[in-house]
Every structure is written in C-alpha cells, then in structure tokens.
C-alpha cells in the first residue's frame, strides 16, 4: 500500500477529485496548507506598512492506494492538477505499513 500525497493549487481540487474517482479512488483526505517552492509570494501594503507574504495557499490531498494502482493515480493527479504555470505543486509517494477501517476492523488492502 502506498500513500500518495499531492500538493496542488486550491482551485484544482474538484478536477483532481473527479480524475481520482475515474481511476477508482473513492476516498481522500484534504487539508488547506500554505507553502512555496519556485512560485514567489506577493506583497501587501496597508497604509504605508508593507508585508511580504511568502506562503501561498495550497491544497494537500492524501490518498491511500494499493501498490499496483499507484502509477495510474499519480498520472491522474498530474494531468488534472497541471496548469503549466509555476506553482502547480508536487506529488510524493510513501509506503504505508498498516491500514485499518475503524468501523468494520478490515485491514490493509480491504481497508482502502
């Protein structure tokens, strides 16, 4: 099992969700985060006081998938989240040691 973590531009969330549903992913966790990479922040000015805002709002999506589906999932996210502009985000894939569905007690792949 793998945990696919994607940091994407917030407005792409629905598109990514639809793409994931299309490849058979029916659950995910989404967090509102801030971050930056190569995309620069912006400056705000309030009555002469300037503030550099370096952190940009992003969405972090986590989906747990069986190992054999990882490639399809990563591809789905990449295609749907891409705009071609700086700041599109990143995808990380890490291993999951254990998974459990709390309601039924199913484990590992049955829990995904």
């Amino acid at each position: 099992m793998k945990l696919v973590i994607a940091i994407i531009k917030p407005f792409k969330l629905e598109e990514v969700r639809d793409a994931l549903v299309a490849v058979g992913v029916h659950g995910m966790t989404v967090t509102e985060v801030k971050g930056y990479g190569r995309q620069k922040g912006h400056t705000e000015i309030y009555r002469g006081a300037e503030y550099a805002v370096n952190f940009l709002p992003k969405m972090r999506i986590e989906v747990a998938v069986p190992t054999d589906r990882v490639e399809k999932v990563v591809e789905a996210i990449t295609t749907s989240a891409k705009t071609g502009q700086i700041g599109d985000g990143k995808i990380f894939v890490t291993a999951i040691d254990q998974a459990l569905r709390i309601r039924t007690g199913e484990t590992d792949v049955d829990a995904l």
Partner: protein
Amino acid sequence: MRMQTSPVGVVAGVIAAVSLALFAAPALAETAPSKIDAADTAWMISATGLVLMMTIPGLALFYCGMVRKKNVLATMAQSLACTMLCSILWFAVGYSLSFAGDGPWLGTFERAFMRGTTMESVSPLAATIPEMLFMMYQMTFAIITVALIAGAVADRMRFSAFLWFAGGWLIVVYVPIAHWVWGGGFLAKAGLLDFAGGTVVHLNAGIAGLVAACLVGKRYGYGTDNFAPHNLSLAVIGTGLLWVGWFGFNGGSALGANSRAAYAIAATHLAASTGALTWMALEWGIRGKPSVLGMISGAVAGLGTITPASGFVLPWHGIVIGLIAGAFCFWACTWLKLKIGYDDSLDVFGVHGVGGATGTLLTGVFAVAMLSADPDTPEGVAGLIEGNARQVLIQLYGIVATLIWSGVLTYILLKVIEFMVPLRVSQQQEIEGLDLTQHGEALQ
C-alpha cells in the same frame, strides 16, 4: 506581586463620595425660559443616536477590522468600555463641569447628576432643546473622543489600565477643553471657532494618542512581523457607520433642525468624499494600486478635518478641505510616522490629530459670516477669505492650547496610572493575544 485594585470599584466610590457632597449643598441651578422646539428636539434626539452609533459599533468595527485576529474582541472592548464608563461619569460630573457655569477654566457642579433640571430646563448653550438631551448629545461626543485614543495603543494596552485611563482622561483632559471651547470658557471667549470638535475631539484625541503610543511603546514585532489587518471588511462597515453617523456629529452641532445643519452635512459629506478620492489617487499614483484601506482612511481624514469647519464654511469649501485633508493625512500616516518612528497602531494622530489641527486652522481661513449669523450675533463670524485674517491666529491659539493641555496631562495621567498597574500587557500576553489574555475569549 501585582496590584489588583478594581478600577470600576474605585470609580464608583469616587462618584458616591462626590454625590454625597453635592446633594448636601443647595441647588444653584437657574433655568433659562423654556422655548423647547419640537423640530429641533426631534432632530437632536436622532443626532444623539447617530453619534452614539459612531462609537458602537462604528469605531469598534473600524478599529477591530484593522488589528490582528487575536486582538479583535479586545479592541471592541475598548470602545465598549468608553461607552459604559464615560456615560456614567459624564452624567455624574462631566456634563456639569463642561457646560454648567461659564468660568474661564471650568464649569461648576450645579448640574451634577443633572440635579435641578426639569422637563422644561434648557441650557443657554442650546436653548431650544431639553437640557437632558443636550447633556446626552454632548455625552456621545465625550465617549467617542476617549474611544478614539484606543486606536493608538491597540494590540498592547492592558484593559485595566485602559479603564483607568478612560475615566481619568475624560475628567482631566476632555472636560476642561470642552468647557474652554464650547462651555463658555476662555477659548470660546477668545472667539475660537470649532463647530463640532476639531480641537475638543480630534486634535485632543490625536495628541493624547501620540503621547500614549510613545509611552506604551511599540508593539512587539513592529516592523518585522506581519501585522496585516484581520478583516478589512469590518473596517469598511465601520467607516460607513462613522460616515453616516457624522451627519449627526456635524449636522447635530447646529443644535437645531435648520439650514445650518444642512450646510454642515453637505460640507461634511463632500469633505469625506474628496478626502477618500484624494487618498485613493495618491496611493494609486505612488504605490500603484488604490487600496480600500486608503479609501476609508481618506474618508475619515476628510470627516475629521471638516469637523470644526462644517458649520462655518460653504459646502464647496468642504471639497477643498477634504482634498487638503486627504493629502496631508496621507503624508502623516505613510511618511511622517515612519520617519519619526512611533507606533500609532491605527493612526489616531495621523488622521485625527493632524486632521483636527488642519481643520481648525482652515476654519479660520474659510469661515463665511453668513453661516454663523444668528439673533445673538447677526453679523456672524468671518474668516480670512472674507477679510478677517485675525481669525486664523485665534484658531492657532486654540490649537496650541489644546495641544499643550492634552499632551501634558495625558502624559501625567498615564504616569500616574503606571504606578498602579502596568500600562502594557506582558510580552507573552501580547504574543498570545489580548482577546484570550485580557478577556478569556477568542474568535473561533
């Protein structure tokens, strides 16, 4: 070891002591013959409501929208505190000392707790409305003047210290100046023109704010941390309430439902609009974008500056004064403040101090005799543009007197309070936020 005297308890005790003394003495009040006018009274009741609205929630929203989220409730609490405390003190002794009796320096106690007033009583200063109403109307001015100062020390003043300050400053600073300018005191006798509070309210609060900001010190993280306004939309709503309320502030200072009120409102509104446009234009040119904060700041600058002039000048002068206000206050808030380096959090000095002084001076320039003509002074009072250059000097006299009294006594008062309780919260409390540390509450 910390002093934990309750400011409210002590104030209550003082009032009780004073009232015991007062009620032991015979009433000295004399009432002017009653000519209460229904139209004037109706308008002034409305105006009183409008001006109270300027503080709660006008100023409360205007200020709280500009502070950080962790201090929003505390900022509102300061406006509430001024309303709660200063209302009682004003009714008790403030009104009397400001408006009863016409000694040069201070009024008398003859109207303490409004004793001696009947339903027919009128003040000689507002002969066509019930004196109770005149007292209430003036109360709303006192409240907002104190509440304005809070903006200078936003984000870091201890609530208990602020309560002491609000009560003390009302009596020691506001009351005398109100008496001097409006209550028949020496400035009024000298011929100072201040229609609705360029000196009494705006310059007064502005200087006090500057002194307080310097004494309390800069906010932790000032100049390095992100102090972006929590929610400017609240500030915009507050500005709207202030702007509309100002129709009662300046319009009501005509003390009657008459043409002068209409002229005052027109000048006021035009000054607000021009001030907003000017600030917006300057910002657009200098910084590249017309900010909303700039628009509302310009509007308030225009409103504060036109205040002393509103019932003395023609409406089109409001445009000129608004333009000067927008430009001058813009300069004070964006250049002067940074150059001198004081942390006047919400620009009380930059907008109200500078605006109030400028407006008071410009009143001496633009005063048109026609507007101040009444049965007592049929010729009215003219300014520079009608040949009376001396009026500008009288205005300057009023500005200097206000500046000195307000500046010096605010300083002394804060030093006295400092003996009892630290003016500022601790650094840890400041980091955590005033809402939680002073009031035990937080926005969710």
